[in-house]
């Protein structure tokens, strides 16, 4: 018997939203608990944009007034990721809050080492939510791991009164109240919702740029009903995030067969067992993308994925593997489209793979840009100036 490949592929072309198979909306329980005085629900501030999640439930994405829940991996090792998010918001004239009263979600460590527990993880999450609430700004989560983990934490708190009681008692000792945001929002959802405004501010033509997208596991696999989908993007079979933005920017999105595979990050593996990470990232992702789609750049929307897919390629070159494609976040890609400085804003010198051919294709003179960066660096080295400011990077 032959395998009916075409039939199988046809079945995968579209995801039909079926009203009989819609997971229940968590908001009902969320607001019920608020009415019973269990916690405060921080409302999504107006104005907001509504986008559709996997099973059709609309999700409100605020336009402005966000509290930036930073990512330790982005700020620490890929700082251009964070600075690009800020830069795009500033360029669009959007007010935000960059807090110091924020810890990491600590979930990278939790998924790596399990040296924590559900109560501690929930308390860390709600401490941050409470800190955001105190400022009046609404949390925007930069990291896919934090986003996925916080959604898990929300599920656990919604369903386990004993956990809520324990977390309430811990937060009470810190003088913090129980706060849960109406929606948990990932920065890439904001970029998706704002894609037309971002495209309207575009200054470079990206029509000649070919892109492959790696969707981040913890964005859409964890609590899947909360991720954004569009029937017109991949037939609603994959999240519309990143791809929708790239299309709005006029670049070409190319598909590849291992899109569902993770990147190989592994949480503990990337730190202490990188042979697995390197092999997986190159053999299951980069090489497949190169062979099937030959992109100019790989875009993704999570700390771990950018790190893994970017850093794993160097060692593979020694084995003559078919690698060598730049990797960045879609926030950096959008910032470049809007005219951001590749070094002062996008910080591409922190990346490992060679991004220079891509910049040339985008029409960016990287030699001149690097010379400008070095001139500014010298000012700091000489002590003429202590820091580079937002005004400096746009000068």
């Amino acid at each position, binding site marked *: 018997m032959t395998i009916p490949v075409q039939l199988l592929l046809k079945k995968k072309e579209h995801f039909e939203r079926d009203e009989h198979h819609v997971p229940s909306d968590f908001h009902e329980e969320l607001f019920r608990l608020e009415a019973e005085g269990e916690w405060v629900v921080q409302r999504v501030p107006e104005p907001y944009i509504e986008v559709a999640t996997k099973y059709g439930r609309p999700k409100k994405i605020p336009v402005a007034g966000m509290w930036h829940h930073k990512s330790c991996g982005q700020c620490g090792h890929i700082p251009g990721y964070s600075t690009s998010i800020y830069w795009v918001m500033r360029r669009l004239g959007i007010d935000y809050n960059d807090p110091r009263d924020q810890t990491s979600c600590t979930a990278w460590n939790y998924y790596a*080492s399990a040296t924590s527990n559900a109560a501690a993880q929930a308390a860390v999450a709600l401490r941050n939510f409470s800190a955001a609430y105190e400022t009046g700004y609404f949390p925007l989560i930069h990291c896919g791991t934090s986003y996925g983990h916080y959604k898990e934490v929300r599920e656990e708190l919604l369903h386990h009164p004993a956990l809520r009681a324990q977390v309430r008692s811990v937060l009470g000792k810190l003088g913090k109240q129980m706060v849960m945001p109406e929606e948990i929002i990932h920065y890439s959802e904001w970029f998706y919702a704002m894609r037309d405004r971002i495209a309207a501010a575009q200054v470079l033509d990206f029509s000649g740029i070919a892109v492959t997208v790696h969707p981040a596991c913890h964005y859409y696999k964890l609590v899947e009903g909360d991720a954004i989908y569009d029937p017109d993007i991949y037939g609603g079979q994959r999240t519309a995030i990143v791809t929708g933005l790239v299309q709005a920017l006029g670049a070409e999105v190319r598909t590849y067969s291992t899109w569902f595979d993770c990147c190989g990050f592994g949480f503990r593996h990337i730190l202490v067992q990188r042979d697995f990470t390197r092999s997986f990232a190159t053999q299951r992702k980069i090489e497949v993308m190169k062979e099937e789609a030959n992109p100019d750049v790989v875009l993704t929307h999570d700390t771990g994925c950018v790190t893994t897919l970017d850093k794993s390629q160097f060692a593979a070159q020694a084995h003559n593997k078919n690698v060598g494609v730049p990797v960045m976040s879609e926030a950096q890609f959008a910032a470049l489209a809007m005219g951001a400085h590749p070094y002062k804003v996008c910080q591409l010198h922190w990346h490992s793979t060679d991004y220079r051919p891509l910049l040339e294709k985008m029409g960016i003179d990287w030699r001149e840009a690097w010379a400008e960066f070095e001139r500014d660096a010298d000012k700091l080295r000489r002590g003429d100036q202590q820091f580079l400011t937002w005004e400096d990077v746009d000068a």
Partner: protein
Amino acid sequence: MSMLAYPGGSGRGRLEAVIDAGSALLKAPAVAGFADVPFAEKQRLVDEVMADMRYPDYLYGCYECGICVAACPSARFYDFSPRRIAQASAREDVELMYQQMEEDIWECSQCFSCVRCPRGNNPGGIITIMREVAVNNGLGSARKALEGYTRIIYKIMSTGTQVSPDMLQPDAFPDWGPEVKDVSENLDVWRRMLPPETMHTTSTGWDVDPRTLIELYLIWFETGALDMIKKVDEGLHMILEEVMEERLEEEGIER
């Protein structure tokens, strides 16, 4: 019950073990890479896994279909299988679950690709719980898996951010290319060139408010997360406890 024969090495002859039919992958103690413990102890550990409030949400039986295996990165690159995890749990196979806690669970990438399970299972989530139990009970696998990882635990628990710019040292990441050396050599200047004021730091991802850190320390104390460290690394626990208690004392906070 069935008798399964294990091929032995020279001089060892044939090892035989009496095991459940469902545990065809169970290793006899003589070939397992971990110490055997009395059955009651294994049962206690398994009970601890099953008592976790999340456990009923992570397991609804198993079709044995292998969809999770097809999606699993660790199954592709290790001798590891989320289906075996779900099967052992669904059968409440104490011997096999203990073996998995000592051998398999640290291979998992925690990517949660396996939640595409048509039965609604979350094998990766079961593993999270098994890992927590392994840490809580100081199992050999947990101690071994966390060797070389302790500086990360120290960083996250004491500073509130997990990876810091100054970790980017060429000797720590020789496989990440020459850019790591460039970053480490220019770290101070390149950090001060980042336009957000919160990101001029080198030993943390961003500038965390001291008050925020104290709140984090209280969370570690109050939820028992700090105590968990004692089970896998006494030295690290001592250092962390000292650092945190000193800060809390300075602030006049009594626990």
